[in-house]
């Protein structure tokens, strides 16, 4: 008897077969506990027939332990000679094990065990986001996210009260999501979807749907943070230096890169090439590109791009380079106007003084005449 499958209490004479199912771990779905039956057989040394059966049942709380039990059977006597139990301890805030046992319909022996464990990485932060949907008006929430996080999305629906006729689904785009938890208290239905966002493919829109007479919907939109540049063009003069600034509020970017516009294509700016360009970052929230010794061909659009673990975002800054002659022309015009006004005032004054002098002389003349 070399087989691993051992049958117990076989009516046949081959008593070396023991039914393994009695030494099996099985999941009691009603109490949500794992049970392991251990059956020990004391065999008579003379007749080799079992004379005593001892049964021990171990209960395991599934939220804490999942035991792996292996029985090592002696190849000669086919009796279990060693029992090894390894227990995996799960911290329920970190892992939620899903253990499914597929049992063969014929032998009632488990034929496949699947354990899928969803790991919540404790080094990531957890975001709890919730929405309340009251009527058939869809509700949206925008969330900016820059690094991988554990996400817990909760939708709160107000139903008509008939809990059985509702159907709650979660979707990302067209793909239906699983592993959702739903519970209801009174006429308020809570549905929750937990997942981890690790890269840019998982960004996007996640929606919860409540199918009743009218469909109610809530949407969570995940986006990388936006970069702010300057809306108005920066005006500089030939020979000056300028600093182009891009800022990102409430975020700490990993990498900033600058591009200049060459026709219609974006050309990355190489800082090592010459002294003209210098990229300074005072802190992770902003980046500064300093361009010295400006000339007229430096004008145009510049792009700053921020690379996050979960995607990229960019912004445009426009630069205009003027020559000094541009404001000089209005200056000379105004200066000429001032010269004319001053001349007019002084000429008017000498004119009136001459008139006054003539009349005074006339008066003196009259007085002298009278004398």
């Amino acid at each position: 008897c070399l087989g691993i499958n051992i049958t117990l209490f076989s009516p046949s004479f081959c008593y070396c077969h023991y039914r393994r199912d009695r030494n099996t771990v099985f999941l009691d779905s009603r109490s949500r506990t794992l049970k392991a039956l251990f059956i020990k057989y004391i065999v008579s040394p003379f007749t080799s027939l079992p004379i005593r059966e001892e049964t021990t049942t171990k209960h395991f709380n599934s939220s804490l332990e999942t035991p792996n039990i292996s029985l090592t059977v002696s190849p000669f006597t086919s009796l279990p000679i060693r029992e090894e139990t390894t227990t995996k301890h799960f911290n329920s805030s970190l892992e939620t094990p899903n253990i499914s046992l597929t049992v063969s319909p014929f032998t009632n022996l488990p034929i496949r065990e699947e354990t899928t464990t969803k790991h919540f990485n404790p080094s990531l932060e957890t975001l709890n986001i919730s929405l309340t949907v009251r009527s058939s008006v869809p509700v949206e929430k925008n969330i900016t996210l820059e690094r991988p996080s554990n996400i817990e999305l909760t939708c709160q629906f107000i139903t008509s009260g008939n809990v059985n006729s509702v159907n709650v689904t979660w979707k990302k785009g067209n793909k239906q999501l699983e592993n959702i938890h739903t519970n209801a208290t009174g006429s308020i239905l809570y549905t929750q979807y937990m997942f981890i966002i690790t890269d840019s493919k998982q960004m996007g829109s996640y929606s919860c749907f409540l199918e009743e007479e009218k469909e109610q919907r809530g949407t969570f939109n995940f986006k990388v943070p936006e970069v702010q540049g300057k809306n108005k063009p920066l005006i500089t003069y030939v020979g000056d230096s300028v600093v182009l600034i891009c800022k990102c509020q409430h975020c700490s970017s990993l990498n900033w890169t600058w591009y200049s516009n060459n026709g219609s294509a974006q050309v990355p700016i190489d800082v090592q090439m010459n002294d003209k360009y210098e990229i300074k970052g005072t802190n992770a929230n902003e980046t500064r590109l300093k361009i010295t010794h400006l000339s007229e061909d430096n004008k145009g659009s510049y792009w700053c791009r921020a690379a996050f673990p979960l995607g990229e975002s960019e912004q445009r800054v426009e630069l205009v380079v003027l020559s000094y002659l541009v404001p000089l022309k209005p200056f000379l015009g105004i200066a000429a106007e001032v010269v004319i006004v001053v001349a007019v005032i002084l000429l008017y004054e000498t004119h009136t003084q001459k008139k006054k002098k003539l009349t005074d002389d006339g008066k003196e003349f009259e007085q002298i005449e009278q004398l």
Partner: protein
Amino acid sequence: MAHRAEPPDGGWGWMVVLSAFFQSALVFGVLRSFGVFFVELVAAFEEQAARVSWIASIGIAVQQFGSPVGSALSTKYGPRPVVMAGGILAASGMLLASLATTLTHLYLSIGLLSGSGWALTFTPTLACLSRYFSRRRSLATGLALTGVGLSSFAFAPLFQWLVSLYAWRGALLLVSALSLHLVACGALLRPLSLMEDPVVGGPGAQLTSLLHHGPFLRYTVALTLINTGYFIPYVHLIAHLQDLDWDPLSAAFLVSVVAISDLVGRVASGWLGDAVPGPVARLLMLWTTLTGVSLALLPVAHTPTALMALAVAYGFTSGALTPVAFSVLPELVGTGRIYCGLGLVQMVESIGGLLGAPLSGYLRDVTGNYTASFVVAGSFLLAGSGILMTLPHFCSLASTSKPQDRIREAVETKVSLSKEEPEED
């Protein structure tokens, strides 16, 4: 030229009012709207805000400390050549500023050069105005000083527009062209000779006689205290509103409303100063007290309506006290000594102006909000108005002094001074 017995009180005097109007616009309007350049310069030179704000501070300081120089020169040569020279200096300062490559260039060009240009323009013009008017002096001064308020309205958006077209360099160049109009304003200042001019003598003699004049000294102290408190809200009102979480548009609107009430206050007070009999110093005390009270109450207001009412009150009263402040001086020292008198007053009160804003900023940094600085500003104003009560003829109903009284007083002062000189044999 014949010396007149009485100031003309009209005629060419109104052209002088016009000239003073444009000059106060071009000097103080530019200084007040300098905040537009401030933002651009901080970004362009990558300097701290404090270092850039020194540009305007140096300009104001040079303008005020240099006032006696302007006064002395205009006593000797008349206001016209002095103001025209001042206009050229101010414009060339701005022109050089547009070519600046470091912050030091700006300190020297705008601060020193334009500042000295402004010193040669503003004080001589106001003194000239006081000589042209006697009965309608306050009204004329009030009308002339509305130039400050109106220009703050016009210049801030204008400068902003110039900066958006030409950046700060081009905008400074065009402000220089604007400042050239000071030369044209100077050309309008026709010389006027009054009867007491030969009596009071040259600038040196005038300065000495002024320094021995008790009421003049008390008035200078009062104005210094007033000056300390006066400028603070202009610098800190917007920041205070930001602290209270006002949005920028409403804050700018409130500042405009304050500017309008400032204008109205100037003209109203000017008219009132001439209409009410008795020393103008009493009106100055009234307006100063009211300004101090409204400033001290400003931090208490939290609702938008209360804040707006107090801001309007502050604007009106602070505008009202300016023309009256200038009108008190000729009554104290006479129109003969007005140039030197005004110059001295401006120089001393500038100490108050220089101390006021940094003191308020320091209080803000220490306490975390603007309550202390507003209250301190208000108390400075109230202290100044208290000293004003000690001026002569404060309680009497006598009207402003007649020319014969002024000449007599001038002669007496000169005689008493020469008696005090040690006898040298």
